[in-house]
């Protein structure tokens, strides 16, 4: 589906990503994790042609994305960005914007089909009831769902999400990720998402890509990537990795400095 070869890119003369190599299979749910500033968002921006590549190439279904026009690419890849814009359109108008890449050259108004697709996207994301509400008046959790609905209205083959659970409470975090999981399972939608919460990443993604300082540190299933040695090395934080008793996926627990010192003192006391 998507193949990234020897990618190096960055802003102006500063190179952010080096030697990035990985591929995403069709129907996969891939998570990208890594510390702040490690280049995760830059990677997404490279995939969507927001920034130019310095080296390497990105292939979407064996075609170099730079040989695909922006409009065609927008019909294949949809993006849910970190900060959804606030404005005064209604939810339905906002979702309909996702149809823009599919407009024909002389098309001025949405067709019946466009409305049906938007309708479907809204019912999938459970936002149909918000249809006529203005975007500025709905809650953060609802807004995130509406942004996903707009991405679905693009009818993409590949969905990219940049921290879809940021600023959401656990109800909405789980709600959003359950939705993404079911889209991935039921419709075979390929998904790449950046997640900050390692536990959510472990629970929902089939494979994880761990990025550190602009390079891929480790790729693999959550059990392989979320190892306490790897996490401590990359995040420079002491952690304990346990197993989630229900899903048996790795679960990461942080240890506070105070607790750590107490532990050390107790150890010394024993000596």
């Amino acid at each position: 589906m998507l193949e990234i070869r020897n990618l190096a890119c960055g802003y102006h003369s500063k190179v952010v990503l080096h030697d990035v190599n990985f591929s995403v299979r069709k129907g996969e749910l891939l998570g990208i994790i890594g510390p702040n500033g490690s280049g995760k968002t830059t990677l997404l921006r490279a995939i969507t042609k927001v920034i130019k590549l310095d080296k390497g190439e990105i292939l979407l279904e064996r075609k170099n994305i730079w040989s695909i026009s922006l409009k065609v690419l927008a019909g294949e890849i949809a993006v849910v960005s970190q900060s959804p814009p606030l404005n005064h359109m209604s939810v339905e108008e906002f979702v309909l914007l996702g149809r823009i890449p599919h407009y024909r050259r002389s098309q001025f108004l949405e067709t019946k089909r466009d409305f049906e697709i938007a309708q479907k996207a809204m019912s999938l994301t459970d936002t149909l009831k918000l249809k006529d509400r203005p975007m500025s008046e709905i809650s953060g959790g609802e807004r995130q769902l509406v942004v996903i609905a707009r991405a679905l209205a693009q009818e993409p083959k590949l969905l990219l999400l940049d921290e879809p659970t940021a600023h959401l409470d656990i109800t909405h975090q789980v709600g959003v990720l359950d939705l993404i999981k079911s889209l991935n399972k039921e419709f075979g939608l390929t998904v790449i998402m950046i997640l900050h919460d390692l536990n959510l990443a472990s629970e929902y993604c089939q494979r994880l890509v761990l990025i550190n300082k602009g390079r891929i540190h480790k790729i693999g299933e959550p059990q392989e990537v979320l190892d306490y040695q790897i996490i401590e090395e990359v995040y420079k934080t002491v952690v304990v990795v346990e197993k989630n008793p229900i899903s048996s996926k790795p679960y990461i627990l942080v240890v506070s400095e105070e607790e750590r010192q107490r532990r050390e003192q107790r150890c010394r006391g024993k000596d």
Partner: protein
Amino acid sequence: MGKKLTRWIIWILFLAGIFLAVSIFSLCIGAAGIPFKKVISIIIEGKGTTEYSIIFDIRLPRIILGLAIGGALSISGVILQGMFRNPLVEPYTLGISGGAALGVCLNIVLGLNRTFGAFSLPVSGFIGAVMVILLVYWLSIRRGILKIQGLLLCGVMISFISSSLIMLIMAVSRTEDLHGIVFWIMGSLEEPNWALIKLALWVSVFGLVISYLFCLDLNALSLGEEEALHLGVNIERTKRLLFIIASLLTGCSVSVVGIIGFVGLVVPHFVRMFVGSDHRILLASSFLAGGAFLIFCDTLARTIISPLELPVGVITGILGGSIFVYAMTKRQVILGEK
């Protein structure tokens, strides 16, 4: 879908109705009041009467020019507010009016209008405007990318620089030149030259048509540049072309009528309040509303203290500003984005 289209058509017809009503009002009213019934009989009778020449040589040109300029400034405002996603931007923010005014000032002070005739005033205004457009454009291109925030800052700074230069010129110029400069800066729809009026009308209609090619891109841009790119909009090309369209519309308007403020700021907001922020309807409605608004203001300006004439900018500012503030507090909505 059908419902939306019907709603849009109703708005267009409604605004066209208002525009016609304002135009007829403007044809009838003035130093010599001509009742509407008489207007028709005068038109049928044809040339020769004084009333005929009042209507066709004095009032009609002002109405057509009002439509052209009001429309051009309004769609320019819509384009710029949509592109910058900033509700405070208006056509003059980019320094185009300052450049045009500076061009005209230099023309008057150097006495070029005495050698080349009155036609040289709009020409020098236009040259001034184009110079500023090129300068602002050149200053805000970085590595082939048009930086929108840079554009805004450059525009504002160049506005300040040119208004300071104008003050400098005014301070050292002779009294009779001063009068010409002030008169031009205040702006007026009085334009005896039919060719210029036609040109202004063509430019604004052309601008409207071209801007419609970008209405969907403008809708996408309301989400932000990167989001628009994700929706398949070639943002670099779109930004450049939109900037050029808006600049040329403003440049032409300013060089023909001088500086008439507030139309390009208030009309788009006001129209957005009623028809919504979809650019497919916003552009055409703003064009009509802007034309009607400017004609109405101009009619007031030439009748309130007739036979004297007030600068039309005075009326657009007072009327537009107060209606806008009233509507905004009444509706309890914050306009524009964010």
